[in-house]
């Protein structure tokens, strides 16, 4: 087993990995950018190394600096988390070349699955169903021809992409040119490649993915599905397991396909096979494989009863995964909500600022994976994920109730968050029925606006100025001429 691991990430996932290491008795090294000097993951790690400027290319995407930091601190392995370098085969190879262990699959598996076009060809060969479409096209003309053949709407996406970046839905031919350009640019900026593929865009489709896990000795199983259909801008905001759509038979079929897909690239460690599911005809298609730990891994951990991050580390160190498929059953129902610093009323534009107040929910079977605390700054350099709120209950209805209660206990001030929006989704009839497809949010909440300001809220805000600032009513009157007198910066509390 390793004695020291470097975590090449930030935010909640870095903290999640640090916790797993501590429980296994492994020392941790955090890396950080100049924007993250006071970040929680830096405080929690045993030691930390400054990589460079805030821009990801200077810090969390800089493979050379990260490997040098591992060498310098004597770490034996690197956990990449998700995003950043986690699905970069060159990085995985460079880590191994530096005589360090990459906690994840082999560079060859990442490379094989990393290219959406090549992986699709490989999956077809392995007998895994795939979405109708084309790979290997170059010119706009070729794409135009392909789109016409497939029929609009189509999806163009970066072959090297993931996480909804470098991806555009094209509803009609006039949008194709702009979409190709934008997807190419985002692909180049985020993944260093502008190769695109094109496929049929499935309307009313569900996104159902399967967790797979294996060791280096060929033992590989699946850990059931995650339904991730509540999305905005192609990014998930609510995930749950089990999916209400799957019958035991479908679950078994999809699980087998997921294992076959992973085995086709000799996969080991944690991975996720994403399927598009068409509920009208109960058909599923391989979408892509995420060759890393997934943001929403906690719901699988709760329902399957396993610590995926600890097992990632253990199998990376060469341990055998001692469980067989039949050792796992799905126990109860788990839901995850992603709390983002973003404004649902402006098309989910990210919101930046300092967290003036940040209070998390707590209670039985409530888990919060977070990277922030009061005083933390949310910057525009990184993903605006504040926290993941995860609940586990006996059945779906109880899990929804638990989630709604937990969400209402959250307080996050200083940035606009999607908490109220998540509540709206959770109490929606379509969500209760499990009918939410991947376009449901944009179709139903396009003109969503935050609730109006209540009289109670105004009374509370007025009184807070008096109560917390220790201002007398006389000086509060004079406050009218000086409306910019924030009481959180005064320290003369008089309560």
């Amino acid at each position, binding site marked *: 087993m390793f004695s020291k691991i470097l975590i090449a990430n930030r935010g909640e996932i870095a903290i999640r990995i640090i916790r797993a290491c501590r429980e296994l008795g492994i020392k941790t090294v955090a890396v950080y950018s100049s924007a993250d000097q006071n970040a929680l993951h830096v405080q929690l790690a045993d030691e930390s190394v400054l990589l460079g400027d805030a821009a990801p290319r200077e810090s969390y995407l800089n493979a050379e600096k990260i490997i040098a930091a591992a060498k310098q601190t004597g770490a034996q392995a690197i956990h990449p988390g998700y995003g950043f370098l986690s699905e970069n085969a060159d990085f995985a190879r460079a880590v191994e070349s530096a005589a360090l262990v990459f906690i994840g699959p082999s560079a060859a598996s990442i490379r094989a699955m990393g290219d959406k076009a090549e992986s699709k060809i490989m999956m077809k060969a392995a007998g895994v169903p795939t979405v109708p479409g084309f790979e290997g096209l170059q010119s706009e003309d070729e794409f135009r021809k392909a789109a016409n053949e497939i029929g609009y709407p189509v999806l163009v996406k970066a072959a090297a992409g993931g996480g909804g970046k470098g991806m555009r839905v094209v509803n009609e031919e006039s949008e194709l040119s702009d979409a190709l350009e934008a997807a190419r640019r985002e692909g180049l900026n985020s993944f260093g490649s502008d190769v695109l593929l094109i496929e049929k865009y499935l309307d009313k489709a569900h996104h159902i993915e399967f967790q797979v896990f294996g060791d280096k000795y060929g033992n590989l199983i699946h850990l059931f599905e995650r339904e991730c259909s509540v999305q905005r801008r192609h990014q998930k905001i609510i995930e749950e397991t089990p999916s209400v759509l799957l019958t035991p038979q479908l679950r078994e079929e999809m699980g087998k396909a997921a294992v076959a897909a992973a085995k086709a690239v000799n996969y080991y460690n944690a991975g996720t096979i994403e399927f598009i599911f068409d509920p009208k005809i109960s058909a599923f298609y391989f979408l892509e494989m995420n060759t890393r730990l997934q943001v929403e891994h906690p719901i699988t951990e709760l329902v399957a009863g396993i610590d995926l991050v600890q097992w990632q580390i253990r199998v990376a160190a060469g341990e055998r995964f001692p469980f067989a498929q039949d050792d796992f059953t799905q126990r109860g129902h788990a839901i995850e909500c992603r709390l983002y610093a973003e404004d649902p009323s402006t098309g989910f*534009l990210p919101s930046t600022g300092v967290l003036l107040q940040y209070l998390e929910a707590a209670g039985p079977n409530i888990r919060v994976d977070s990277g922030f605390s009061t005083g933390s700054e949310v910057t*525009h350099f990184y993903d605006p994920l504040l926290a993941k709120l995860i609940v586990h209950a006996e059945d779906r209805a109880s899990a929804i109730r638990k989630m709604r209660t937990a969400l209402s206990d959250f307080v996050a*001030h200083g940035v606009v968050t999607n908490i109220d929006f998540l509540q709206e989704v959770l109490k929606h009839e379509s969500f209760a029925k499990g009918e939410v497809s991947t376009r449901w949010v944009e179709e139903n909440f396009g003109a969503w606006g935050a609730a109006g300001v209540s009289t109670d*809220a105004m009374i509370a805000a007025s009184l*807070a100025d008096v109560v*917390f600032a220790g201002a007398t009513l006389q000086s509060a009157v004079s406050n*009218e001429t000086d409306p910019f007198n924030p009481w959180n910066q005064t320290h003369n509390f008089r309560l």
Partner: protein
Amino acid sequence: MKTTFDTHSLEVNPSGAGYIAVVDGKNVRVQVLRADAKTGMMELSIDGRRVVAHVSADKAKRWVTMNGQTVMLTKTSGAKRGVRHDHAGGLIAPMPGQVRSVAVKVGDLVKKGQTLLTMEAMKMEIRIQALKDGAVTALHVQQGQTVEREQILIEVEE
């Protein structure tokens, strides 16, 4: 004590052990039952109803969470304010970020809806598009430049 939030005004005055709030001409009795400065928590009695609120302040902004719902209020002197997306023909940055590309130059004629420049923030691409047909009269940013929220990027005149 009169306070104006955005476009709404209310008056709160001390009365006995509590306060009287005047809302839309009606008097509402308010008492502060408990308050904790560290978490910004206040337990209030408003017309006999128990209400728990968390309040934070940043300059003129007040954030209030009640029953799990959060609103942001801005203390104003009564003037109307809102989120601006254009400023006298100038297009402003909707959020802080970096200018990725500039598609036009001063003097170019542009059509409504045409992409003038693109920004990137949090790995998301944002297109700044012309709100009307016209000519580019000023370009205040260049490729690669970091911009602040509401900074004027480009100006288009009819």
